[in-house]
């Protein structure tokens, strides 16, 4: 399945998907509400069968005031991949947990929570993954300020 075919198949799957520009692989944007159901559709579709969640991470678009969740899915049978994005409100980022769809999402979501502060609903074990439980703030946010962190004094 080439890029356009894949994209059209995905877009025909649900009207809630919208194509995303400026990516090197087929990419769609999905609404946050019902993300779990959409992902289940992508995983169980016979021609798509995205059974591996390779990347789950987030991007802090501070100018737009959004946090974008980025999921890159890979099919182990057809070897094609798809990028799914979802935009959250930056001030109050809440998203549904995908740990029921892919087991690994549990950890990836913990990491995103740790570094970006995205809260996941229905997550089995939402706590920080890499930093201490009492860490103040979420370091990968663009406006993260830490007195400990040193700026490089020269360019």
């Amino acid at each position, binding site marked *: 399945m080439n890029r356009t075919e894949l994209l059209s198949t995905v877009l025909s799957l649900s009207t809630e998907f919208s194509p995303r520009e400026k990516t090197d692989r087929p990419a769609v944007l999905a609404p946050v509400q019902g993300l779990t159901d959409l992902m289940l559709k992508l995983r169980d579709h016979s021609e798509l069968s995205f059974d591996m969640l390779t990347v789950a991470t987030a991007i802090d678009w501070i100018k737009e005031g959004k946090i974008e969740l980025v999921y*890159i899915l890979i099919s182990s049978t057809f070897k094609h991949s798809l*990028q799914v994005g979802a935009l959250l409100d930056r001030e*109050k980022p809440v998203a549904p947990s995908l740990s029921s769809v892919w087991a690994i999402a549990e950890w990836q979501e913990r990491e995103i929570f740790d570094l970006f502060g995205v809260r996941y609903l229905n997550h089995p074990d939402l706590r920080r993954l890499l930093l201490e439980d009492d860490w103040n703030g979420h370091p990968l*946010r663009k406006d*993260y300020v830490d007195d400990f962190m040193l700026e490089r004094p020269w360019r």
Partner: protein
Amino acid sequence: MEITGMTAATMSNTEVPVSSLDERIKFFQNEPQSALATQEYFVNMGPQHPSTHGVLRLVLKMDGETVREIIPVLGYVHRGMEKKAEYIGYRQQVHLTDRLDYLCALMNNWVMADAVERAMKIELNDRILTLRTIFAELQRIQSHQLWWGVFGMDLGAFTPFLYGFRDREKITAIFEDTMGARLTMNYIQPGGLMYDIHPEFPRKVKDFLKYFKPILNEYDELFTGNVIVHQRLKGIGILDGKTAISVGASGPVLRASGVSYDLRKSDPYGVYSKTQFEVPVGTTGDCWDRYIVRMQEMRESIRIVEQLIDNIPEGPTMVMKFGAKIRIPEGIYYNQMETARGILGVMLVADGTEKPYRLHFRTPNFNNLWSVISMAKGLRLADLVAILSSVDIVVPDIDR
């Protein structure tokens, strides 16, 4: 611990509860039901423990010798690499990747360099690609040699460790000739290679291959055929293919579970499409399969290098102007490759400047560690050590 730090965006999402490690441990605590029931206890394995391969900490709930629950606690080498990457240019990212999974530093370099090249749509010549492939395969052998030695040590046999390192040093010496470094090479750069190869490089590689092929049989004699090894590995830590895919395991861990998914075959990069090699696949996905798959991979890597080493094409080893500023057009770029431990991915979010807006490393050990949790429950402590070792964890790669 008192650390001064603040966030600009203070969160007020009280409706989603956040747990902590103490709460998690309490969650698994349960009092014995009767006087006859055994009392379960918690024990810390790590951060300083000989067989966690670094500073991984596992909080184990044990019932005698049996592991009931595993709570991994990560972050003991979390260096904030992804944050640092936002402050430095694309060329400098390569040296960060060296310190991710330091046992396959060259392959990590390659992923980063390739991500930049694909984003900038730079065409490379055959010499660069061939050399990169040879280096990657040599590094795969080197990484598996170390794994083999450490695997033996974790099972209680100390001698394989020294045999593995004896041969690993030979590849290290070959690398050192060309790159001047033994472990963190920083050699494969966006646009080519740092320098041309050492003139003696092809001869030394051929000598090494000639030396190493019989040595692999020696490895088998020392360790593979041992009856205790069979007893310790067979049927232990079974990871079925479906679970392996669901947790996103990759590399030998996934292939031992019977899923033939190797990026070198399915999405060829470098000059892998021009070479003949098999992808070893296991059947049951136990520790023994992972062991055999890795041993076979060493043989296949030898095959690949043998095909390439005799006819390295001529040409320049750097196609970009060295030192030129790299600016990547706006967009999200994702590139992945097969390292010795699995799929290493780099997600670049570029905003048109010299520095990435966001850089994310998708590391193989992160997912592979998760598979350990599902494998080791209900087994003995010694099995947990064997499983951890058969999955071949590198902790700085998980923590980044």
